[in-house]
């Protein structure tokens, strides 16, 4: 919304400068996005008249004019499409200066002498750009200094209006708040209406067939109007407020809409068949052409203003091409109505239209302002276009909208805001905003004005009081109340710990968009796409991710391409899948996912250079399981022959916490990664639900540990885990721990054989062990290993 300083000051004497007003508007809740200052410099600018105008050959759009500027006639080259002989213009003579600071000189353009420039509003700094040069009214005196007619400066504020304030879409509405804030008297505006004998009721008949959608419809007539341009200062004001001047009658409707917030429409009475207007819903599929020459197929919820034959306007949105004001229009029917916001919004949305009119009706206009605005319209049409104003109105108001009565307890303002407000000030503020206040007891009754449909409840009035009296009056208080509200969400706490653990393990935390689109031949196989959205932002964001692993692999590939080939990445995020119909909480889970590729140790002057592998991944998982005190974690690996690549599941308690694995080079090659990539993705809720909460210290052993190393050769296919269970079974309960310290495969050991060396630790809680006991245990282990796995001692 563009607001003019001058226009506002017609209703209230503004107590601040144009620069300061921007701040005032901000403090009233209007966000000022830009301030435009119009202050024309009219030195050496005069009124002229084009005597001759001829296109210059070889140019697209330039004309050579002979322009009379008082005593002399100058050759002036002009590029405007509306330059024509007989037109009165504004001529910038040599020495004048454009708004952009360019000094006009005599010049040669395309071989033609030019002694100045014919000006548009933009060049004079009068208004934003407008097609072509200024077309002066015929009665402006040629040769007169332009300052005589155009010395008109103003400041215009481009403000953002919040959707709850329809009244702010008008100068009156904003001026009213300024007057309330500064406690200034209101300057009412009145338009003189000279009605003739003939009555509007004899001129047009109205029927409201859809009273819910159209609670009030008022018309009046003006006959014998002469269509012409509106007075220039009106055109200038419209231009500055972002509306293109068209003709006196149309300009009246726009002018009063900007002033009062009431959208208006003017019909050419000739094109209202049978002089009858019916406000009715469209027939399904009924076609209608709006005055922007677009044809619409209407639905039965779209409200039409129709004559006896067809639609003549799309109610509250746009007039029809068939009944618009033309150059030869003489008899005008003014429409001033109140349309229901919901209906206007629905039609505007379904037709994809948003007009100055629809934006106002959608937010809610003031139905009780209608007669005043209609009278003003008639008066201005007569003032700018002549003719006779028919007497009276045709006012159909089947469902009067009455002011809302609000029970108001003034002390509630202090209770909610935390600072005392004077009751007399409260009453004054509300009254100035247009409320009727009965403040006889502690329970007041406040009637909210119909131009403020946002005021419905006590709290809405409190907001008004605080806003108008100033948000800067709200103190800053620090509460000293004790509020114990429980612990952070358990998954949030676990997530923080997981982050700490992985960062300590040298992982970099990533955050990536959780929306993606799978690329089946490029992404690793077997990953779920996720949940498809109905209206993706772009095609690349069709799904809420089913797993973050493929997106992470893409990120890894991008890093690879830049030469970063040693990557340890992790992300805590959410993954999505279809869940229970009514419960979105079942549609997602929080996960931690990681990728591991490249060297085992960071490159340095003394580190070995071998790549990391599946067992580096297992270390990370073991570390995570330990540090999170997971209850009975089991890092279970699948049989390679069944699955095809190294992978497994992290199981905790009875639940599966997630998957891990190693994508072989062939898989990663699709993304130009020439290495295998280890990965994991774990469900944080499952981890959080399976943590040991209790811990008790174990007494230190009182007797020394006895240990032995064993090295056996056996079939490559025997898993270490089986070996361990055989060892444990054979060793008896003195065996404390078993772990491998060397594993290797070599043909020197025999085809398909491997060597496994492991350390065994024995301990008796009550006494020292003697060597013979341990040797006996070792002997039974060796025997058992031979029997069960054909393992030979090395």
């Amino acid at each position, binding site marked *: 919304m563009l607001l003019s300083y001058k226009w506002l000051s017609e209703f209230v004497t503004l107590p601040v400068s144009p620069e300061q007003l921007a701040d005032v508007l901000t403090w009233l809740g209007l966000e000022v996005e830009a301030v435009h200052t119009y202050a024309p410099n009219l030195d050496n600018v005069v009124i002229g008249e084009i005597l001759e105008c001829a296109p210059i050959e070889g140019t697209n759009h330039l004309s050579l004019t002979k322009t009379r500027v008082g005593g002399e006639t100058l050759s002036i080259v002009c590029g405007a499409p509306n330059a024509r002989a007989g037109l009165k213009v504004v001529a910038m003579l040599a020495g004048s200066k454009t708004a952009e600071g360019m000094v006009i000189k005599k010049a040669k353009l395309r071989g033609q002498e030019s002694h100045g420039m014919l000006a548009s509003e933009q060049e004079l700094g009068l208004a934003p750009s407008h097609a072509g040069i200024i077309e002066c009214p015929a009665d402006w005196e040629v040769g007169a200094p332009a300052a005589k007619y155009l010395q008109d400066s103003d400041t215009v504020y481009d403000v953002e209006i919040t959707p709850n304030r329809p009244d702010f879409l008008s100068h009156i509405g904003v001026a009213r708040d300024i007057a309330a804030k500064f406690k200034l008297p209101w300057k009412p505006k009145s338009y003189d209406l000279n009605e003739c004998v003939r009555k509007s009721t004899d001129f047009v008949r109205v029927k409201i067939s859809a009273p819910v959608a159209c609670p009030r419809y008022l018309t009046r007539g003006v006959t014998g109007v002469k269509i012409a341009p509106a007075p220039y200062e009106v055109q200038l004001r419209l231009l500055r407020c972002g509306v293109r001047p068209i003709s006196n009658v149309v300009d009246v409707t726009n002018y009063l809409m900007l002033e009062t917030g009431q959208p208006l429409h003017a019909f050419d009475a000739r094109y209202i068949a049978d002089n009858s207007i019916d406000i009715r819903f469209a027939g399904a599929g009924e076609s209608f052409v709006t005055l922007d020459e677009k044809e619409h197929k209407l639905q039965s919820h779209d409200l039409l203003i129709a004559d006896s034959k067809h639609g003549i306007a799309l109610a509250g949105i746009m007039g029809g091409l068939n009944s618009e004001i033309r150059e030869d229009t003489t008899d005008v029917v003014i429409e001033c109505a109140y349309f229901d916001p919901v209906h206007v919004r629905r039609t505007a949305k379904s037709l994809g239209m948003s007009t100055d009119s629809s934006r106002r009706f959608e937010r809610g206009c003031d139905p009780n302002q209608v007669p005043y605005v209609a009278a003003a319209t008639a008066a201005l049409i007569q003032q700018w276009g002549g003719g006779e104003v028919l007497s009276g109105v045709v006012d159909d108001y089947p469902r009067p909208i009455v002011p809302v009565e609000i029970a108001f307890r003034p002390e509630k303002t202090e209770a909610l805001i935390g600072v005392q407000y004077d009751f007399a000030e409260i009453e004054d503020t509300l009254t100035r905003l247009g409320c009727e206040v009965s403040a006889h007891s502690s329970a007041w009754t406040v009637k909210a004005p119909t131009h403020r449909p946002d005021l419905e409840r006590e709290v809405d009035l409190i*907001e008004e009081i605080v806003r108008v009296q100033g948000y800067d009056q709200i103190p800053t208080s620090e*509460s000293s109340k004790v509020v114990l509200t429980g612990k952070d969400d358990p998954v949030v706490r676990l997530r923080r710990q997981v*982050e700490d653990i992985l960062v300590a393990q040298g992982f970099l935390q990533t955050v990536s968009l959780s929306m993606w689109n799978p690329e089946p031949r490029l992404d690793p196989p077997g990953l779920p796409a996720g949940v498809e*959205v109905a209206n993706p932002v772009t095609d690349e964001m069709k799904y809420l991710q089913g797993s973050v692993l493929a997106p992470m692999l893409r990120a890894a590939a991008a890093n690879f391409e830049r030469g970063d080939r040693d990557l340890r990445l992790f992300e805590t995020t959410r993954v999505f899948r279809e869940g229970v119909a009514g419960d979105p909480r079942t549609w997602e889970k929080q996960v931690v996912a990681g990728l591991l590729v490249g060297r085992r140790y960071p490159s340095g002057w003394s580190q070995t250079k071998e790549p990391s592998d599946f067992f580096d991944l297992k270390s990370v998982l073991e570390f995570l399981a330990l540090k999170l005190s997971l209850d009975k974690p089991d890092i279970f690996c699948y049989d390679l022959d069944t699955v095809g690549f190294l992978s497994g599941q992290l199981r905790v308690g009875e639940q599966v916490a997630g998957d891990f694995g190693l994508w072989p080079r062939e898989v990663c090659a699709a993304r130009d990664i020439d290495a295998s990539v280890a990965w994991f993705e774990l469900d944080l809720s499952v981890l959080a639900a399976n943590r040991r909460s209790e811990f008790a210290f174990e007494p230190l052993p009182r007797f020394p540990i006895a240990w032995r190393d064993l090295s056996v050769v056996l079939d490559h296919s025997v898993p270490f885990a089986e070996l361990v269970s055989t060892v444990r079974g054979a060793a008896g309960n003195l065996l404390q721990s078993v772990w491998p310290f060397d594993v290797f495969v070599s043909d020197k050991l025999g085809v398909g054989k491997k060597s496994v060396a492991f350390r065994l630790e024995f301990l008796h809680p009550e006494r020292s062990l003697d060597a013979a006991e341990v040797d006996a245990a070792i002997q039974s282990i060796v025997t058992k290993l031979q029997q069960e796995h054909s393992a030979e001692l090395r």
Partner: protein
Amino acid sequence: MRDEISKLRDEAAEALRSASDLTALEQVSVKYLSRKGLVAGLFKQLGKVDAAERPIIGQLLNDLKQQLENLEAERTLALKPRSKEFDVDTTLPGRGTWIGSYHPLTIVMREITDIFGRMGFRVADGPEIELVKYNFDMLNTPPWHPSRDESDTIYLPNGFVVRTETSPVQVRTMEKQDPPVRIISPGRVYRRDRPDATHSPMFHQVEGLYVDKGVTMAELKGTLLAFYKELFGQDTKLRFRPHFFPFTEPSAEVDITCPFCKAEGCRICKYTTWLEMGGSGMVDPNVLQGVGYDPEIYSGFAFGLGIDRIAMLRFGIPNIRLLFDSDVRFLRQFSGFTPR
């Protein structure tokens, strides 16, 4: 006596330092530190010292002996033939270990949750896929509000909404719990914005809520001021601008003085000296009623702020995409942070 001690200290120290091999060092040692050496000689004179002075002089002698013995030990190590183990280039860096890093959003998020945690706000969490009921209806969003449009908000084909703010968590929490409620809800939110330098269809928010008996807008202002002082420095100032949010009434837009130019005007604050931080206000009675709280008994405040923008301001990150690109050259720069 004091002078003698000091003189002997200088003399002996000099002799120990200038001994050029182990034999020479041994001789110096014998001269000063043996049982019949010069230091022992001084100890013998202790008996003659005035009784009042004696403990002090005794302490000085002990110190002298200790210092010279340390120096002797150091010199012995230095003069001994060195083992191979020590024959290294000490200017080489350490062997190195993988260095992890927290994402800048985590760094900022944790700082924020820490500050609010100290003010008694608990972290609450909720789903990113939401019911329209929680994301809009119960937040008092009017049916016509543009934020509901498919052009602004991502929906699933079944009508679920991908949450546009973290306030649904507040409603879910209030439904489960009686007042007092004092929570913050950090998390990812989604809007149908095309990605550019300052917009991303996914970004991060922290929203806060406090509902109790007698909560006032002055407390809201006090809470936010205390928070921003902790985050941006004690000289930070705060102002409320009137605004409209369906969730709150009255509503305020929160501005703080620009911490980058100390409110003198700079490119970051566009020379206004103020930075817009987010919305806030008193929880609308409709919202309280909707979760079964009696607005005649309880009142509350709510506020929100954008984490991505704070992180970008904080670290001078010019483009929001850098946050979501997983570029390790970017991520590694944050390895010096260990947030709480």
